[in-house]
């Protein structure tokens, strides 16, 4: 299944590994921060409704 990477296996695997890791971290943090922000907004809007 794995292609014959030959003598450059370390380079190729590390390139893919780090890149995918960085992308996953970016998407993960984005979604985490986004969920938190949207929840905070909902709370704030709810408080405004209950105040008025």
């Amino acid at each position, binding site marked *: 299944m794995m292609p014959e*990477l030959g003598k450059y296996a370390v*380079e190729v695997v590390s390139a*893919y590994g780090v*890149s995918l890791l960085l992308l996953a971290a970016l998407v993960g943090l984005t979604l985490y921060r986004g969920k938190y922000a949207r929840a905070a*907004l909902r709370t704030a809007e709810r408080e405004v409704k209950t105040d008025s």
Partner: protein
Amino acid sequence: MSIWSYANPVKFLALSARVQPALWGAAALCVSVGLIWGFFGTPDDARQGSTVKIIYLHVPAALMAINAWFMMLVASLIWLIRRHHVSALAAKAAAPVGAIMTLIALFTGAVWGQPMWGTWWAWDPRLTSFLILFLFYLGYIALWEAVEDPDTAADLTSVLCLVGSVFAVLSRYAVNFWSQGLHQGTSVPVATGGRTVADVFFYPLVVSMLGFGLLFIALVFYRTGTEISLRRAAALRARADRGL
């Protein structure tokens, strides 16, 4: 209805909600297809061996690193001229994405060159220019974080983006000039202007580039929504604190 109607945060969020599922789906599809096809389905290069597979990461990331900054530049101009908050927040949202793209481009570029140069980093003009671009991204993000008032932050970062763009272009030429003295001449083995990439490598590359582009757009839409939410929540809290 012109495109300017999306400067309205509510309309923007509505548009964002409509397009995001498709964007994320298409992005995931293209990135996976591009990378899997490229990694498993293409042969090795005669000279570079299996390291040519890095092209499917490096070129799309490098492309988006530049495009992200360009998008920030346009968004900054729109903010400075038309004062649309969505635009300013979109630039803010795009910056970390661009920075990560630059980081990926740097890492893959350095690793790709390792077999050729024998070191894990070389002061190749293209890599060096991307390193400088990364510093510009860091400065831009840091400035957003450092200024308290959001509108002032938007103003200052917009001008920084403008000035930074000029100096980034200037640095590109300066770095090219500077690297002549190294007598190295070999740059990252990427498809530069004259040299063409063989078809068998080209198609998965295009898919991957498309995927990275879609991913960027999806991320910016979502992140801009996050920024809008944060701004709105802060504004509501401020009003509540003032007793309104």
